[in-house]
């Protein structure tokens, strides 16, 4: 069966769609009331975030837009030190979308939410006309998390001299999986879309002094580190030999003239951690799901001359050095 404009009418078709797809998968005591707004207990410091997901194809190697829409929002909450609790789900469906596909995507959202320990407590569905092409869907998720009272919330402006820069795993997998699918390049690369709850929770429980953490999404590691560097007025020096990139992604980048430093992930984070805690932090991350390739990739250097404190650079394999600047352009393939 396909989505029709009637599914967005607000009448019986809408109720049936919500009942048979959304409520079936998301089912929990708060959502099940199907009230105009969900009422939940809460106190102290709240973290709130929202994100919209428009990826095509909607099902890709290693994941789908549903899983992605949970990971993106959950990971954003985690990066501010919050424990993610509740999510909302807004879906905009295109006329003609196969209901089996929708069911798969929403099922995947529900499963990922369970994995991340969050509840989807309210939602909305609209149907729009198909403007040509494969009918798709757009998902918006907003999320709320609670920040522990005693937590010194990490931030991009809190990097300190001699901090270690740690990445939780291989770079570029999500970006390469999506781009490869769009371009029809067959490859074993799978999206790394994953919620990082266990990892962040373990780091904070173990008392690792995390000064900043950020999930590495659009724009890639280079973009995140440039923001760290300019917010904290410090230099960051990476070691190319230590950057974890799988052989498949490395060659994928080679074929298209792309740089893994600017490729997006959806289940990786980069941290700036007190230098003395670095080794322990890596051990903690490696013991968590999705963290097996974590490693130290560089360090923070604050010069006494404050005018020389805004560079991200990488020491190359042959001992050269280049600046990792902001990302420009759309990464068009080179011809030569």
């Amino acid at each position, binding site marked *: 069966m396909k989505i029709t404009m009637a599914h967005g009418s607000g009448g019986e078709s809408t109720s049936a769609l919500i009942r048979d797809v959304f409520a079936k998968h998301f089912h929990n005591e708060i959502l099940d009331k199907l009230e105009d707004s969900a009422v939940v207990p809460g106190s102290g410091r709240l973290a709130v975030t929202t994100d919209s997901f428009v990826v095509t194809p909607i099902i890709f190697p290693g994941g789908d837009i549903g899983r992605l829409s949970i990971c993106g929002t959950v990971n954003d909450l985690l990066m501010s030190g919050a424990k993610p609790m509740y999510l909302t789900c807004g879906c905009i469906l295109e006329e003609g979308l196969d209901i089996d596909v929708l069911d798969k995507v929403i099922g995947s959202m529900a499963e990922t939410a369970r994995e991340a320990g969050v509840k989807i407590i309210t939602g909305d569905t609209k149907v729009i006309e198909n403007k040509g092409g494969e009918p798709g869907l757009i998902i918006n998720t907003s999320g709320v998390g609670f920040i522990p009272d005693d937590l010194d919330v990490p931030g991009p402006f809190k990097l300190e001299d001699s901090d270690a820069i740690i990445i939780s795993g291989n770079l570029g997998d999500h970006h390469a999986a999506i781009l*490869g699918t769009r371009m029809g*390049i*067959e*490859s*074993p*690369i799978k999206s790394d879309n994953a919620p990082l709850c266990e990892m962040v929770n373990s780091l904070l429980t173990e008392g690792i002094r995390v000064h900043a953490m950020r999930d590495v999404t659009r724009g890639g590691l280079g973009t995140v580190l440039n923001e760290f560097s300019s917010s904290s007025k410090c230099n960051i020096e990476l070691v190319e030999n230590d950057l974890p990139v799988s*052989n*498949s992604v*490395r*060659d*994928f980048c*080679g*074929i*298209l*003239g792309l740089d893994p430093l600017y490729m997006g992930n959806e289940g990786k984070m980069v941290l700036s951690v007190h230098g003395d805690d670095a080794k322990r932090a890596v051990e903690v991350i490696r013991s968590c799901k999705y963290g097996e390739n974590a490693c130290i990739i560089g360090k923070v250097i604050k010069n006494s001359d404050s005018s020389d404190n805004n560079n991200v650079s990488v020491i190359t394999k042959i001992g050269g050095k280049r600046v990792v600047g902001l990302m420009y352009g759309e990464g068009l*393939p*080179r*011809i*030569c």
Partner: protein
Amino acid sequence: MCVAIPGKVIKLDGTKATVDFSGNIVNAEAGLVNVKVGDRVLVHAGCIIQTMDDAMADEMEELFKEIEDLGV
């Protein structure tokens, strides 16, 4: 586009080759060079422009010898 890294021919159908770059599978025209399955090749703009001669691998020792030949 020019790919600086070599790929490996895994299938050949007339002049249509399938080339593997660490698991990334790309189709390429093989009309400009004689290739056989297993050859390492350079691909440019969708065409194989040259095979890589592994016997001539550009090992650094070879390059150092070249430099020593300069007699400097």
